[in-house]
């Protein structure tokens, strides 16, 4: 324990050292052009360092003779990408730093930490009189930094809850944002009329512009907290959707008010045009998004031969949607969001699993970089830029932002509540209102304000104030407050088949009852859309367009997990030896079952590992070479797994009803066994695995829960698919080791359904799974050969308690032969 802390401290120190080093790099890099400044002719007025640096190299040819330079340095050439890279690196190191001691990020949101680091860096830069990098311009922000952020939220939007609550989400996002902007803008304008505050020169348009900027909530920090404490789905999706769509609304309002702010006089017709434009911009964005989303989905239908560039299509099409929307000056944010939502479903079915993972990671990565940089700049700019501090204006901004947010939620909820099945309680409303943090987009918008707006500095200062206030005060306090309030919670990691089945049952029941009552709701539309989707969209957009129930897909997912678990804790299938991972599991299970713990000698572990690598790894390579998995990866895999599942069920069925397995013959569980001194460890393992019929599922569910499947980073890609290549393997190797594991058992070839099941069942003949199931259905055909002769347990094991199976089936699912028609049919 002590050492771990020590090492933690060390790593932390190491990271800080690195940060320092990086900072040094930053500064030394940036000081370079300044040093060369005196040498340049002084006729260029030094407005922007960047400008200067571009001019700088031109001065050289005059002064020097044209001799071949041995060592040259052309810093201005690489300056922008170089500094950008350093900034990103610095921010990433900061992120690593936060997560070394992960308790920090539980209590303090990451955005706070980023801003803090930014502040520190800003302070250092300020002390060495360094200008902040002039990277964040309006164009850079709108063309390069905003798209990844929005793409991320659009792509990872939990689709189902969103469409279940779409009315509420849009209500809050659109009306709420309008409400906030207009409310705050008008009240600030009212404040501006007072002479005492000295801000009379801010006119109505500018106030509205500013208000529209600061009404964009950016609830990343709140969402993290919500997700952590498992707040109920409705609030979560409302906050999420609000953050997403009010970006769109804000950007529209922003451009509109920025335009209006230029006009000297606003006529009433301008207002109507503005409203009309608002709708054109919004619906245009959605249309473009849909168009590009479908085109992207359609394209990925044909990419199965060029898997490497599949992810590219997703990014290029969504970016294209963004740019084209920008071209026509319609809402590019809405376009990219709609594009992402539209294509996600189809693309993820078309592309290979790897591409899917790549897409998810890259989307996340880009947005993290972008957001991190913005927060970082926020910190730096806060320190380094000039501020215009007007107590009255800033305090009133804070006050109004609070009041209008609270009021807005209260009023809007009262209006929307009668239309909701599950109404928002006051606690929920408080959560909604308090989760309205301001963030990166707000800062970026205000920072890119054109400089012809008078009092721009005041706006920047006020925005920074409100961001820092909400992010720090609200962001830090939201978790304790929500926990204290005991807000309605949801258990999110219910990833069991039963829950999925009942979710579906519930949907159909509710839909049916609504049909009976003769009313429509989103279930009705969902049903209609599903039919349309199955009939047309899937046929056009998907390569493999067979409709798949969500139960089946979840089932497959669980199967996958199960298969992986089976590989990790081999039941003797792949090889008779456990992997290191399985040893770990084994120990955990031992604890659970209060079994005496076994200690493995290092040599044993190594031996097992050897066997494992021999039996598994090479086969895996071979399989990859033989089966061209790039063609039909998902299908073949899932089929294997289904077969595997059949096999395992069949195994457990048979284990119970026929008592064929030695381990089942020997009573109860492992705690009654002891390893004889001369016993072979491998055979021990093979045996113990036999009797784990029920534990398998335990482990599966435990594992699912521990893997922390979360909604937002929707986890399909978490399943490490690559392990599956091992499933199909030639039987010979497994058989080898398994036979050697049972030196005294009759050879497996002796009986068709050998009593020592390890080699045959799990090796080469997976394909027989179906046939075997058929056997189960028609027991008359297959029973005879199934019944094995009574075997003595292998010598290595000595049961302490011979209390065999007077009691029939071991499979928990089947009735005893006397109890039910099915059971009797089976045994």
């Amino acid at each position, binding site marked *: 324990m002590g050492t771990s802390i020590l090492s933690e401290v060390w790593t932390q120190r190491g990271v800080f050292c690195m940060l320092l080093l990086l900072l040094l790099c930053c500064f030394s890099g940036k000081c370079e052009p300044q040093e060369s400044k005196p040498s340049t002719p002084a006729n260029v007025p030094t407005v922007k360092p960047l400008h200067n640096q571009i001019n700088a190299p031109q001065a050289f040819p005059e002064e020097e003779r044209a001799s071949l330079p041995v060592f040259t340095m052309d810093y201005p050439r690489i300056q922008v990408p170089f500094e950008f890279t350093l900034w990103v690196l610095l921010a990433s190191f900061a992120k690593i730093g936060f997560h070394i001691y992960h308790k920090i990020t539980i209590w303090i949101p990451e955005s706070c930490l980023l801003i803090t680091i930014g502040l520190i860096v800003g302070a250092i830069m300020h002390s060495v009189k360094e200008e902040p990098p002039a990277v964040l311009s309006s164009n850079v922000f709108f063309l390069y930094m905003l798209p990844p952020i929005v793409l991320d939220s659009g792509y990872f939007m939990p689709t189902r809850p969103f469409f279940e609550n779409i009315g509420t989400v849009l209500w809050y996002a659109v009306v709420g944002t309008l409400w906030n902007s207009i409310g705050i803008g008008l009240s600030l304008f009212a404040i501006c009329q007072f002479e005492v505050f000295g801000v009379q020169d801010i006119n109505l348009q500018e106030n509205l512009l500013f208000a529209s900027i600061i009404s964009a909530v950016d609830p990343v920090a709140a969402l993290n907290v919500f997700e952590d404490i498992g707040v109920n*789905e409705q609030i979560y999706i409302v906050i999420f959707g609000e953050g997403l769509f009010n970006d769109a609304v804000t950007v529209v309002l922003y451009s509109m008010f920025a335009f209006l702010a230029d006009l000297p006089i606003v006529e009433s017709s301008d207002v109507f045009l503005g409203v009309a434009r608002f709708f054109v911009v919004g619906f245009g964005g959605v249309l473009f998004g849909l168009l590009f989303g479908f085109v992207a989905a359609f394209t990925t239908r044909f990419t199965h031969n060029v898997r490497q560039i599949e992810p590219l299509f997703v990014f290029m099409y969504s970016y294209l949607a963004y740019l084209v929307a920008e071209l026509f000056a319609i809402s590019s944010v809405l376009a990219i969001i709609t594009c992402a939502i539209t294509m996600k479903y189809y693309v993820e079915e078309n592309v290979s699993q790897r591409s899917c993972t790549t897409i998810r990671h890259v989307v996340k990565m880009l947005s993290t970089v972008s957001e991190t940089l913005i927060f970082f700049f926020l910190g730096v700019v806060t320190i380094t830029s000039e501020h215009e501090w007007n107590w009255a204006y800033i305090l009133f901004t804070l006050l109004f932002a609070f009041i209008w947010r609270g009021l807005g939620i209260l009023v809007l909820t009262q209006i929307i509540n009668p239309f*909701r*099945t*599950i*109404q928002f*309680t006051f606690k929920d409303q408080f959560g909604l209102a308090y989760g309205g943090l301001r963030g990166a987009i707000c800062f970026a918008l205000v920072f890119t304000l054109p400089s012809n707006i008078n009092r721009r500095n005041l706006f920047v200062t006020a925005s920074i104030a409100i961001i820092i206030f909400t992010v720090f005060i609200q962001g830090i306090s939201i978790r304790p407050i929500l926990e204290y309030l005991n807000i309605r919670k*949801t*258990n999110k990691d*219910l990833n*069991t*088949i*039963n829950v999925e*089945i*009942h979710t579906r*049952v*519930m949907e*159909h*029941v*509710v839909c*049916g*009852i609504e*049909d*009976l*009552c*003769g*009313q*429509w*709701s989103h279930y009705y539309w969902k*049903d209609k859309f599903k*039919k349309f989707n199955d009939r047309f969209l899937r046929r056009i957009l998907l390569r493999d367009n*067979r*409709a*798949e*129930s969500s*139960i*089946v897909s979840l*089932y497959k997912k669980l199967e996958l997990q199960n298969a992986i678990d089976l590989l990790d804790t081999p039941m003797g299938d792949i090889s008779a030896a456990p992997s290191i991972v399985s040893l770990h599991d084994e120990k955990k299970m031992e604890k*659970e*079952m209060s079994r005496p713990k076994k200690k493995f000698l290092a040599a044993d572990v190594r031996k097992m590992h050897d066997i494992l690598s021999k039996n598994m790894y090479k086969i895996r390579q071979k399989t990859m070479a033989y089966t061209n998995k790039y063609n039909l990866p998902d299908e073949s895999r899932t089929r294997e797994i*289904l077969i595997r599942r*059949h096999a395992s*069920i069949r195994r457990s069925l048979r*284990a*119970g009803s026929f008592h064929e397995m030695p381990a*089942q013959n020997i009573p109860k*569980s492992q705690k009654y066994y002891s390893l004889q001194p001369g016993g072979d460890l491998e055979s021990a393992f093979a045996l113990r695995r036999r009797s784990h019929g*029920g534990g398998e*599922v*335990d482990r599966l*569910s435990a594992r699912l829960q521990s893997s922390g499947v979360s909604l937002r980073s929707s986890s399909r890609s978490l399943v490490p698919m690559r392990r599956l290549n091992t499933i199909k393997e030639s039987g010979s190797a497994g058989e080898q080791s398994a036979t050697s594991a049972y030196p005294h058992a009759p050879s497996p070839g002796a009986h068709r359904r050998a009593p020592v099941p390890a080699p045959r069942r799990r090796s080469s003949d997976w394909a027989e799974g179906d046939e075997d*199931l058929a056997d189960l259905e028609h027991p008359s055909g297959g029973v005879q050969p199934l019944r094995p002769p009574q075997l003595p347990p292998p010598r290595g094991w000595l049961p302490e308690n011979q209390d065999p199976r007077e*009691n*029939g*089936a*071991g499979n*928990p*699912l*089947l*009735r005893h032969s006397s109890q*039910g028609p099915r059971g009797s049919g089976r045994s």
Partner: protein
Amino acid sequence: MGALQSLPGQPEYIGLAEKTGFSFDQIGVLHKRFKQLSHNEETLRRDHFNEIPDLACNPIRAQIIEAFFDRRNYRQNAVGMVEEISFEEFLVVMSHFRPPSPHMTEEQRESVRREKLRFLFNMHDTDNDGTITLEEYRHVVEELLSRSGALGKETAKSIADAAMLEVASISMGHMEPDEFYEGITFEHFLKLLDGFEIESRMSIRFLNMDTTTLCK
């Protein structure tokens, strides 16, 4: 229109409203729908349900319809099936789907939850023996997947088996090899769907307005 029709029936609605918790408006709307479904008769039979076109493509239509004819769902401790139902029974079954009120104590919420789960349980437990056996569960899953086309019974069966194994592991913990899992009892069912927000999912916003003219 709906209001006019419901006026004469107002006194009888009082009893119904107390019993089911619906408002008069809602009862009026549902009554009108009932008349529409039964072609102005006093009772509904199964074939009336089978005529509803919207319901025709619901994969678990049979279970939904049976739930209306199941005495267990009438809140009066009776068992068995009936052949035809009056408006009162129709309404009582419907009342299982009322959304929970936002101002409930924990106990009330828990009882609403139990009641809704009981409805669901009864739907699965067709022979009313207090357990959902593997066959019954398989049947549910098969019906659920019956619209998914080529999947076939094998998949449904293996899914049901896996689900049942899961139930066994959740409710019994570790089972000895010679133990046998009878089926899902109601207690296990509660435990199984512990985190499942049935009170919000099994809820319908019953309208106060009459929209039945829009539907077939």
